[in-house]
């Protein structure tokens, strides 16, 4: 589904953020991308979406990253930004939800029907006509995910999805991801510091350290390896730390 081969990237006027990264994510995989601040997690997501120009080869759904394929690639990947306020720019939730689908050629009526289905799936029908600036943090996060799901992406990329969520909304998010995967086997990639969330929702973990892949393997194994986590400036998930 997503393949990185020898990908490197340097922000203008800064040090290299990604160093010769190679990995691939298969269809239906649930992947947690973890690492300390500045490890390059968000940069990887941006590279997969073609928001930054990297060296190396990136392929999404069999399409090589290029200007011509950009639109198709972005249709395949739904990106949920860390800050929902930066993601939702239309006045109301429903208008934000149909924005992408209509841009990709769906009729407005069909887009609205699809949006209704997604809202029902997520149990947030009550948010349909809500103004974007009149929602709580948890509601905004769910609405942001809904705007992306309406476009029927093949994979979800989520940047710090549990940040700024209270325990109840965090639990809702975990249940939502599980429901989504059970229903459609959708591929998803989560970047986060919340290792308990990763343990609950991902079967594979990639650890990034200073723009390099430090480990890649089953979540159950990696997230129990205290020495490995500490070597990469991370800590054991709370459930394993016994706190």
């Amino acid at each position, binding site marked *: 589904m997503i393949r990185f081969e020898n990908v490197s990237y340097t922000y203008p006027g800064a040090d290299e953020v990604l160093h010769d990264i190679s990995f691939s994510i298969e269809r239906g995989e649930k992947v947690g991308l973890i690492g300390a601040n500045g490890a390059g997690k968000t940069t990887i997501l941006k590279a997969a979406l073609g*928001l930054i120009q990297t060296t190396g080869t990136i392929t999404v759904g069999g399409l090589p990253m290029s200007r011509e394929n950009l639109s198709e690639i972005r249709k395949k990947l739904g990106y949920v930004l860390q800050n929902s306020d930066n993601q939702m720019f239309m*006045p109301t939730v429903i208008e934000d939800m149909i924005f992408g689908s209509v*841009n990709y050629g769906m009729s407005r009526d069909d887009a609205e029907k699809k949006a209704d289905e997604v809202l029902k799936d997520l149990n947030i029908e009550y948010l349909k006509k809500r103004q974007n*600036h009149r929602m709580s943090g948890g509601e905004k996060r769910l609405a942001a995910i809904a705007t992306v799901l309406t476009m029927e992406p093949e994979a979800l990329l989520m940047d710090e999805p549990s940040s700024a969520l209270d325990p109840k909304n965090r639990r809702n998010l975990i249940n939502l991801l599980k429901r989504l995967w059970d229903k459609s086997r959708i591929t998803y990639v989560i970047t986060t510091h919340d290792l308990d969330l990763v343990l609950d929702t991902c079967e594979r973990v990639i650890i990034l350290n200073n723009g390099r892949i430090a480990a890649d393997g089953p979540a159950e194994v990696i997230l129990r390896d205290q020495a490995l986590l500490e070597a990469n400036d991370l800590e054991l998930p709370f459930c394993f730390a016994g706190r």
Partner: protein
Amino acid sequence: MNKAEKAEREILAIDGMSKGDSAVHRMSPLSKLLLTIVYIVITVSFNKYDITGIFIMILFPVVGYVASGVPVSTAFWKLRIVLPLVCAVGIINPFLDREILFYLGNIGVSGGVVSFITLLMKGVFSLLASFLLVSTTPVEEICRALRQVHFPKILTSLFLLTFRYVHVLLEEVSIMTDAYHLRSPGQKGIHISAWGSFLGQLILRSSDRAGQLYDSMLLRGFQGEFYYAKGRKSAAYSWPVAIICIALAVTFRFLNIAAIFGGVII
């Protein structure tokens, strides 16, 4: 609530108003846009001494505001910052042009006073017409109408993004102002010594956020077109009404109705 937050809420209120439901709201965005443009062009084209001719042009905003249910007081309140500028434009006319054009009783009215009042009316009528358009038509639909008349894609995108950027900018101003005042008790406003860093941070932060918003638009297929804006069905009377209004405006431009009526009555 600080001033930036209030300003942001005012903009959101206009956005909310544009989603209303009235005879004017239901007109097609393109017909309203063209009508507004033609109205403004005709209004500003009046001779600077044609005070009786231009006066009749008040009919359009009056009818528009009544039919749309948008309170005129709201329009004047929202335009309170721009209106003094309109007044300022012609304020020196009475001093430059002192030739007496006519007498009101014993008082001579100079060309400068007449041209000042005419200029004021041109500005106020044009602003009222523009406000009527934005308070009855969502910004995306205005952009789409502009694209329909082949207005350059880059300019419509710029217009939309500027509109969105104002929100972002005001939000950041609001957050930063609150943060500043929490650590500077008793201070009114922002001290001059902090202006440089405040402005610098504001630009960096808001452009960063605006960049993310734009990325979010790109990721959902935005390429400068406004397909998603073709919302509700426009009323069948849109174009007939627009054409009649344009025809009337053109007639008023070339026939001084007020003078004709005045002549008949006198």
